[in-house]
């Protein structure tokens, strides 16, 4: 009945098909990201009421928490596609894993910076060595290690496989980041938003946060599409289909 779905997925694994698919998907994802981001930021910065305790300073949550979720989500994507790259040697999985790393590193960096900006007025310190902050910092170093290892190799595909392996080793850190506030007694608060249960947050504040989460996801998809397209062109440089694209774009 729905036999076209696996067939389509298999075709999507081939670089030319993915190149076209990513090119078509990218503007929609970017548009969705901008739209949701604009609504979410308006809702968070203007419509949502000030917090009874933190006043307006809590509003950085609308950047901090979505970035933090993305820093872990992107790492998970990188780990899974790295696993696929190592087991089935799919070129596309290598591309997705390696092009996810800089995006994830950027989200992790944003998380750390916004968290430290938030920490100064609320905790009275920019930085403290508690479990959540330290494990997030380790996550950033893991991203940087993966990026560094990828670029240390002459052969890009070999570099991608080695870096995928490192990414898989580092996956162990993701649950540590997530559960650090539960396992240790930390200065960082526990999780307020619960997808499957009752969130300890007013709806007026929650809906912009959820929109921002979707916006960052859409941005990740858009950014990944763009980066993967460029990377695929570079990897497949000598192939016919790339030459045809180059010729098409060269003719005025």
């Amino acid at each position, binding site marked *: 009945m729905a036999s076209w779905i696996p067939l389509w997925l298999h075709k999507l694994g081939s670089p030319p098909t993915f190149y076209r698919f990513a090119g078509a998907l990218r503007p929609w994802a970017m548009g969705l990201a901008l739209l949701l981001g604009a609504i979410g930021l308006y809702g968070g910065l203007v419509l949502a009421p000030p917090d009874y305790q933190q006043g307006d300073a809590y509003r950085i949550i609308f950047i901090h928490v979505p970035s933090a979720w993305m820093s872990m989500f992107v790492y998970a994507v990188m780990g899974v596609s790295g696993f696929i790259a190592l087991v089935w040697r799919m070129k596309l999985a290598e591309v997705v894993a390696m092009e996810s790393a800089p995006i994830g590193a950027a989200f992790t960096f944003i998380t750390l910076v916004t968290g430290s900006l938030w920490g100064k007025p609320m905790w009275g310190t920019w930085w403290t060595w508690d479990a959540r902050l330290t494990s997030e910092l380790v996550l950033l170093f893991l991203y940087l290690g993966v990026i560094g290892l990828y670029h240390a190799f002459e052969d890009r595909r070999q570099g991608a496989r*080695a870096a995928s392996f490192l990414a898989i080793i580092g996956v162990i850190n993701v649950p540590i980041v997530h559960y650090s506030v539960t396992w240790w007694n930390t200065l960082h608060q526990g999780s307020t938003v619960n997808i499957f249960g009752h969130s300890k947050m007013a709806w007026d504040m929650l809906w912009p946060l959820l929109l921002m989460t979707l916006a960052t996801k859409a941005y990740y998809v858009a950014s990944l599409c763009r980066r993967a397209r460029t990377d695929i062109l570079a990897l497949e440089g000598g192939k016919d289909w790339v030459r045809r694209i180059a010729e098409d774009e060269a003719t005025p």
Partner: protein
Amino acid sequence: MSGASLPQACAAMLRRDLTLAWRRRGDLAMPVLYAVIVAVLFPFALGPDLALLQRIAAGVVLVTVLLAMLLALDAMFASDIEDGSLEQLVLSPQPLAPMLGMKILAHWLATALPLIVVSPLLAGMLHLPAAAMPALLLALLLATPLLSLLGAVLVALTVGTRRSGMLLALMLLPLCVPVVIFAAGAVAAAQQGLPWLAPVAWLAAALILAVVLAPLACAAALRIALDS
């Protein structure tokens, strides 16, 4: 074709690597000298205040040993790559993981053991109380093989690259954080007269896990890095 059994092959591998290390025993002294010099720098940088040195002694010794091991890690497969014997090892009929495990063991015996032997001296220079010494030694005995095993996986990954020194540090140090935390936690607890067995037990558990998994991961990483 020699039909050597696995234990024989392991013993031969261990003997070969230890012989090679012993023939160049000048190199073996380098990490130890490095650790001594780094530890000596701390009292100069922080001032010879007894209370301060006592408080940081264990941490300084741990980090110094970690850095000295990091410097020595690079050499784990370097000579074998140069003369091609690592490729021969990968092609040999013996399973790769136990062979690499023996190489890691030889490397640990050659670099980490001298560091552990000299660590009471370092700790003494920084005035670590004698009561905390057993905890420090036990923590080092468990933490250094962990670092060797973790490091071996990463060294294997960087085997095919041109310059790997700083990259190795960037990759290894984040993975070392838990090891340092538990080792330092054990010594700190011992220094305050608290029970310090729990963090040591964590280290031991992690070591057991690493002994089983790291040689396998090291073999997989080596195959990736050599496959071109």
